[in-house]
Structure formats: C-alpha cells, structure tokens
C-alpha cells in the first residue's frame, strides 16, 4: 500500500472516531431547546445530503430530494421529489426543524411558503463543479453545527485533489475520451463542452473527443467517427441499459473508431463520475488509472 493510501486510511479512522464523539456530544444538547442543533433535517441537493451523511448527521436527516442518492443509507430516507419541483406541504409533513437547500432548489413559491411556515431555511452558496465542493462542505458544517468536522473533511478533500494533481501533472499523453450519456435506438447522446463529463475528463488528464458542441447532444454516426475517440466512457446505468459496454463498443459507428478497434471502454458509477462531491477525488483517480494504464501504479489517493 502506498504512503498516501495509508495516510488516507488513517485520516478516515480518525474522522470516524471524531464523528462518533460528536454524536455523543450532541445528545445532551437535546435537552436544551434554544439554539440546539436541528434534529429533523430535510436536505435538498445531492451533494449537501452526501456531505451531511459524511459528517455523521445521517440519522438527523428525515427527508431528501431525488437527486440525493449517495450514500446508500439515503434509500431509507423519505423522498420529497425533484429538487426544483418541491411541494411545500409535502416537505412540511416531515415536520422538519431545518431545511437545507441547494441554491437552485425551487420553485420559488414553495420556498416562500416554507419560509412563511416558520421553518429554518439554509440555502447553500451558489456554484457547481469542482470549485463548489469545499464551500458546500463548509456550509453544511456551519448549518449543522459541526464546523470543525467540516473543516477536517474540506482539508482532506483539498489534500486528495492536490495529491492527484501532482501525480497526474507528469502525464503528457491526453487520450481523446467520448462520454455517452444515453445509448438507445437512435443517435446516442454525447457530452460536449460545459458539462460535468468534460470537467472530470480534463481532471483525469483526458481530452473530450467532442469539440464544438455544448451540453449533451445527439451524436450522428459520422460525427462519432470524426471524433475518433481513443477511449469510450460510459456511466454504469448507460452500459447496463444498452446491454453491456461491449455491445455499445460494437455499434457500427463506434466499432471503427480507435476505441472500438482497441476495445477500450471504461464503465464507472454514474453519480460518482458526474456528480461533483466528496467522491470526486476517487472518481478522478479511477478514471485516470483507466485512461493511463501505464501510469496506473502511480495514481492513488
């Protein structure tokens, strides 16, 4: 095991120990109602929920939106619907004492109604992508009254990203990566610029094979050939619904690309890959190892 890996493990153990101590500390505070930390939290926004669980506040979360799907324990939490289509009364029926919201949660009417009902609302700082993760960690920490634990989580996140960057800096080759977000009967949907997919590909020292398209767009057979991807990248759910990664690679439009000829396809957990959050360093490392197999030994958190 590498030195970094060991350090990560150690930090993890310490963090867990710290969290269980916090849990104990919170209990007596229950008696004191004034200014006590929230006990019934509704969390709206996948990253916020993930962070809250990582801070050990999972047992205080009574509701989450449908974008909250990690960690697996979220499954047991009541779902309040899609984050931009909240039902105010639905949220209130969970009797929350704190509602933690992503800045683009909505609709505005529902937010106003929740405010009118007198529940404490905490709205996360604006932003998406890599740069938004640390501010969100700090925000959740402050909101839940666990600022110091959040600080530890944030510095661990930054440290992991730094470690990865220094490991990946040395790699010059930047393979062309094609990410397909859906593969059906018609043209597959490919990730262009300004997407989370392109951001994570860049971080892993790859290069988006699609140039000149913004967002997720249908890719014609000729455009797929012209993009000449070296590697095909598929989120797990896409590979599964298309009958396996190899089935996708054998599509006539992909089979004649370098990726198809060399059989290079990478399948990764959809949320870890595309949702920027605490698992992003893990995702970057996993993707970088797959893109640069010759350097794989040197890439670790």
């Amino acid at each position: 095991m590498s030195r970094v890996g060991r350090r990560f493990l150690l930090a993890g153990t310490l963090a867990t120990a710290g969290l269980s101590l916090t849990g104990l500390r919170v209990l007596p505070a229950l008696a004191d109602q004034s200014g006590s930390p929230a006990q019934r939290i509704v969390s709206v926004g996948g990253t916020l929920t993930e962070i809250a669980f990582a801070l050990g506040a999972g047992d205080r979360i009574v509701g989450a939106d449908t974008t909250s799907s990690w960690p697996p324990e979220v499954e047991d939490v009541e779902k309040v619907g899609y984050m931009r289509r909240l039902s105010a009364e639905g949220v209130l029926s969970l009797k929350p004492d704190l509602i933690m919201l992503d800045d683009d949660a909505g609709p505005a009417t529902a937010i106003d109604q929740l405010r009118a009902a007198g529940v404490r609302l905490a709205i996360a700082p604006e932003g998406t992508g890599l740069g938004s993760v640390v501010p969100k960690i700090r925000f959740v920490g402050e909101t839940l009254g666990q600022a110091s634990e959040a600080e530890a989580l944030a510095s661990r996140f930054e440290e992991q990203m730094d470690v990865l960057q220094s490991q990946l800096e040395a790699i010059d080759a930047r393979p062309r990566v094609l990410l397909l977000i859906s593969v059906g009967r018609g043209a597959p949907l490919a990730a262009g610029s300004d997407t989370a997919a392109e951001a994570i590909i860049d971080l892993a020292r790859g290069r988006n094979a699609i140039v000149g398209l913004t967002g997720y767009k249908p890719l014609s057979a000729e455009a797929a050939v012209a993009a000449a991807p070296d590697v095909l990248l598929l989120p797990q759910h896409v590979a599964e619904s298309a009958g396996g990664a190899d089935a996708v690679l054998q599509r006539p439009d992909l089979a004649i690309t370098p990726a198809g000829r060399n059989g290079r396809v990478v399948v990764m957990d959809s949320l870890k890959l595309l949702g920027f959050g605490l698992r992003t360093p893990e995702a970057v490392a996993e993707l970088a190892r797959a893109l640069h197999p010759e350097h794989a030994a040197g890439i670790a958190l």
Partner: protein
Amino acid sequence: MTMATAASVAPRNGMLRAGLPIVAFAVLAIGFALAGLAFGPVRLELTQILAALSGEADPSTQAIVTQIRAPRILLGVAVGAGLALSGVALQGILRNPLADPGLIGVTGGAALGAVLVIVLGAAVLSSLPEGLRPYLLPFAAFCGALAVTAFIFGFARQSGTTSVTTLILAGVAVNAISGAAIGALVYISDDQQLRDLTFWSMGGLGQANWTSGFIATLCILFAGAGLLQMARALDLFQLGERAAYHSGVDVERAKLKAAGWSALAVGAGTAVAGPIGFIGLVAPHLARLSVGPSHKLVAPAAALIGVALVLAADLAVRTAVPPAEPPIGLATSLIGGPFFLWLLLRYLRRSTPHA
C-alpha cells in the same frame, strides 16, 4: 290549455330535471374544495383548520392552510371553470366534439411562451427587478396563448367570414410549428432546463400563491362571464352557421368572442398552472350527458364539473405519494383518457342499430 302554456310548462319541467344534476355538481365541487382544505400530506385536525382560518393557529399550520392550501383551491376553481367553459364554447362554435383549447393551438402557444422563458429567459430575467421575475413565465405563456389565437383567427378569416375547417386546420398546423419550436428549444436546453420544462408541461397547482391565484381568477371571471352569455348563440350554432345567422346571431362576432374569451381563460390558467389536459374536452361532454344539449345548462354544469375534476385530481396528486407530489397532468390524463374511451364506446354502441 293553450299552446302558450304548454310551451312554457315543458321547459320549466326540463329546467327542473336539469337543475338537479347542476345542484349535484355544485355540491361535488364544494365538497372537493373543502376536502382540499382539510386533507393534504400534513394531517390537520378540524379544530386546527378552523383556528388557522380565523388566524389563531401556530405559524406552521397557519401557513399550510392560508398560504398553501387555500390559494391552491382558488387557482383550481379558476382553472377548472376556465378550461371547461372554453371547451363548451369551442366545441359549440366549431361544432366539433373533439374541440378543446389544445386543438386550436391556445395551449401550444402558451407552452411555447413558457418554454422560451425557461430556456432563453436567463438574460431577460437578470435585467428585471427581483419582484417581477416570477411573473415573466406566466406572462410569456399568456402572451403566447393570445398571440396564437389571434393569428389563427386572423388566418382563417377570409373576406369577412371565418371558415371553421380552416380554423381547425390552421390550429393543427400552428400546433405542429410551436411543437417544432419547442423541440428546437429543448435541443439547446441544458439538463436543468429540460427538467424544468418537462415538469412545467405536465401542469400543477403547486405554484399557486395569492397573487397568481387572484390574477388568474380575475381573468377567468371576466372570460367566464363572457362565455356564459353566449349560451343562446351556441344553441343556435348547433343548427348550422347559416341557420344561426338567419336566427339573428352575428356569427362572426360570436366566433371572435368565443376565441377571445377562451384564449383569455386558458391563457391565464395555463400561465399559472401549466397545461392541464382533458378538462376542456371531458367536462362539456359530461355536462351534456347529464343536462341535455341546452347551453344555458351545459355551460354552468361543465364549469362545475371542471372545478370538481381539477380539485379532485389535485387532491389525488397531493396525497398519493407524500411528501413528493406528481404533476396534476398525470392524474387528469389518467382519469380523462379512459373516460374518453368509454364515452366513445358508448357513442358507438348507441349509433349502431341492434340486430
């Protein structure tokens, strides 16, 4: 007995027979309105609701009753009545049992306006003062509905008369065009916008607050009053346009009024609640089945049925899978679709002579 008394007695009997279903529909509509106030994902006792109505409940209960449930019911009443009355007027004027506000492009125009704001509105939104921003989307939807209706009627009006066939065909064409424009906007939208417009297109009363509820209600009150006055003209239209004309109906004016009031009612409703399908189609048919063909009775009956259906559908989506809330369009189409098939089947059975 003279002819005159016989003639005056018969309709009075008819009115009495038809009055009963109307009272029943009114009771149903009021019942669903009260149920909408009483039931929801949050369980409230009757005493709590009464306390909230008199302003003496805790802030949370107060907000649920007066800020969430009550404006929703107001909007539901307005939208249900507006859609149903538009359906009555359009089916009557066009003499087409399939006519509903969607057919002549009113809903499509509203959808185009809304989708434009969702996808391209960011630039306009940021230049608007904070307080006005939430109203840009309903305003655009409303303008879209009005613009499309005005265009279709202008298009179908050649040398002083409006051809009903041209009107319907132009509506179909404009629907296709606005559908394509929406498709193009969907193509350039990002993931979040795509989600927003998918949910918008399925409708919902969740956006209701007192301001939007009052604005929509006011528009629909005006339009509804205008449409209710058209009952006699609509009756005569059933004899054919020419017969209506000879009975003294200004047919061009009647068509224009039906279109204008429908656009106002549907535009205002769709602007706040999104496109809600099937109410405009089903409510008039149900009304005719129960009170007969006279529009003097069909119009109020359809309005009450529309209100009852929208409030019932809203109650269903609010309490089906709490704390989440599916779009109301799912419920209305789920009720409306099978119901319409049943209606068709009945019609077919009736018109096929028994062997």
